[in-house]
């Protein structure tokens, strides 16, 4: 009986807290039917926001995958002074409020910032422009690949790499043929987490973007603008699309598991 009631409680919580909000978003978006919802998405500013979000996400995922793999490699395969400090530092973006993360970039690259004026004179715009949005997103999503890779690579130890080394493999061969394939599930999971997080980032991006519709508005920023402008259907359509994209990424994380289970059944 107790087992049963726990089970019910779990489901009630999941429905209330996890499933209800996105369901409400979708319901609001489709309140006036599918056609107005789709029309609101194909508005030029809306398309620009979707496109910018995809761009920023792609760049962040690429940058953080490369950084994450190298950082995890260094952190797990070598012992050096300051290693544990570095392990903590990597998590910094998780603990700092995204707004603060955004402000940092303004302080560096803004018009009144340290390097802002010099860069501005050279014709390089970072604050209130796309590069600033990318930097802010990269910073916020930096820990995910590292943090999913480190525990796995730690547990795997150095044996496989040493075996590869003794078989004559160089650094790149070891990385491509041994380390990454060995950690591929964790890597995949980290990349998808980064993707979901990069698409949804609001705080840090909001600070550095300057909210120029059609130029520096990502999907979350555009949703806010629409909502504040009482364009409910457009806001919720965009929100439903964003939520759907993020959920896809998260669901894909479990794909390797399902695949393995399916293969097992076949075998």
């Amino acid at each position, binding site marked *: 009986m107790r087992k049963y009631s726990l089970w019910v409680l779990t489901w009630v919580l999941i429905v209330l807290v996890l499933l209800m909000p996105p369901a409400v978003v979708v319901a609001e978006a489709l309140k006036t039917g599918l056609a107005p919802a789709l029309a609101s998405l194909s508005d030029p500013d809306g398309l620009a926001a979707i496109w910018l979000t995809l761009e920023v996400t792609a760049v962040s995922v690429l940058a953080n995958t490369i950084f994450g793999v190298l950082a995890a490699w260094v952190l797990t395969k070598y012992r050096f002074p300051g290693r544990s400090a570095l392990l903590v530092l990597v998590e910094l973006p998780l603990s700092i409020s995204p707004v603060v993360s955004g402000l940092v970039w303004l302080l560096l690259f803004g018009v009144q910032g340290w390097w802002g004026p010099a860069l501005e004179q050279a014709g390089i715009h970072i604050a209130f422009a796309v590069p600033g949005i990318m930097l802010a997103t990269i910073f916020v999503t930096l820990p995910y690949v590292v943090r999913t890779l480190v525990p796995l690579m730690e547990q795997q130890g150095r044996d*496989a790499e040493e*075996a590869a*080394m*003794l*078989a*004559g493999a*160089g650094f790149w061969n070891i990385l491509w*043929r041994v380390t990454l*394939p060995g950690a591929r599930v964790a890597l995949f999971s980290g990349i998808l987490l980064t993707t979901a997080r990069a698409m949804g980032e609001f705080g840090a991006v909001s600070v550095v973007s300057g909210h120029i519709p059609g130029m520096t508005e990502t999907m979350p920023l555009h949703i806010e603008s629409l909502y504040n402008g009482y364009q409910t259907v457009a806001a919720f359509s965009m929100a439903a699309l964003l939520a759907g994209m993020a959920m896809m990424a998260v669901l894909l994380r479990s794909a390797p598991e399902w695949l393995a289970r399916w293969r097992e059944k076949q075998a």
Partner: protein
Amino acid sequence: MSVQVEHLVRYAPGSTRRLLNDVSLNVPTGAFVALVGPSGAGKTTLLRAIAGLDTFEQGTLLLDGQTMGTMRDRARKIGFVFQNYALFPHMTVAKNISFGLDVLPRSERPSRSAIAARVQELLDLMQIPDAGASYPARLSGGQRQRVALARALATGPKLLLLDEPFGALDPIVRRSIRTWLKALHERLGLTTILVTHDQDEAVEIADRIVVMQHGQIVQDATPEELNRNPQTAFVMEFLGEAPSFNGIVQDGLMVPDEAGLLPFAVDASVPPGPVTAMLRPYEIQVCGPDERSAQEPVIPLVAEGARNGYRHYRAQLAERSVPFSIPDFTENTVEIQASGLLDISRARLFRDGERCG
């Protein structure tokens, strides 16, 4: 391929503790050497240093009389089998074995068909001809062991380094793979260095045994020599059960401290003073009380049955009991009485742990 290690010193990372303390070792081409010793003795550290996996602070290491250059140079000449095999779990057995060939620069890499042929040749040699398409997770421990060995041999190395290769195997598989490995060593003309903590295994497989303790080589000899002439009490004890008896050497006679043990004559070269006599249980002999002066205290003897071709007994000394055994065959008419005196004259003598007679 010969291995020459001279005065090797390696410190524990970030500490002054010596993992290898002035180790010198000479392994001629074609030798089968076992590094034995308790855990923490530095066996694996020495093996890893020879493989080039770890650096060392002092000393020289020569392979075929030359210092080794890059890891890639070593890889072609050295095959290494890890304690837990370290197979690549995401590759098939065939891919695991061909790894060393697949990573060769294009100009030196054999053709696909040549690699496939080499893999099959190795699988046949390892007596697992059909395992090529399986993944390591599907194999038994003994099969994984063979795959690890095949991978180590793929590039045709002349030096084979094995780190506790039989540790995870059950006793029957262990025994058969041991014999087979020895045969492989002969057949391929390898020079083999094996690390093990199992002295029986070392004695059976190797033609030279290097005993290590506290990062140093204590003794380096053939199994026969090691058994006959252990240099220290540690070696004596490490090679098998060895009851020890304290006593004092005086006027060419060793007089044991405990009652019920017969004094025995020692070589004139043994300086007078306290010594420890050590011997194997099967080297202890028993005399009836009537053979010597009747005043000698007589110690009770308890029979403990027969196994492994020996009849086992325990002699109840005043403070402890000591095991001894005699060969168990029908012609052996030695009758052990319920009590007697122990003759330990076949013992080796040690003073402060060092051999003195």
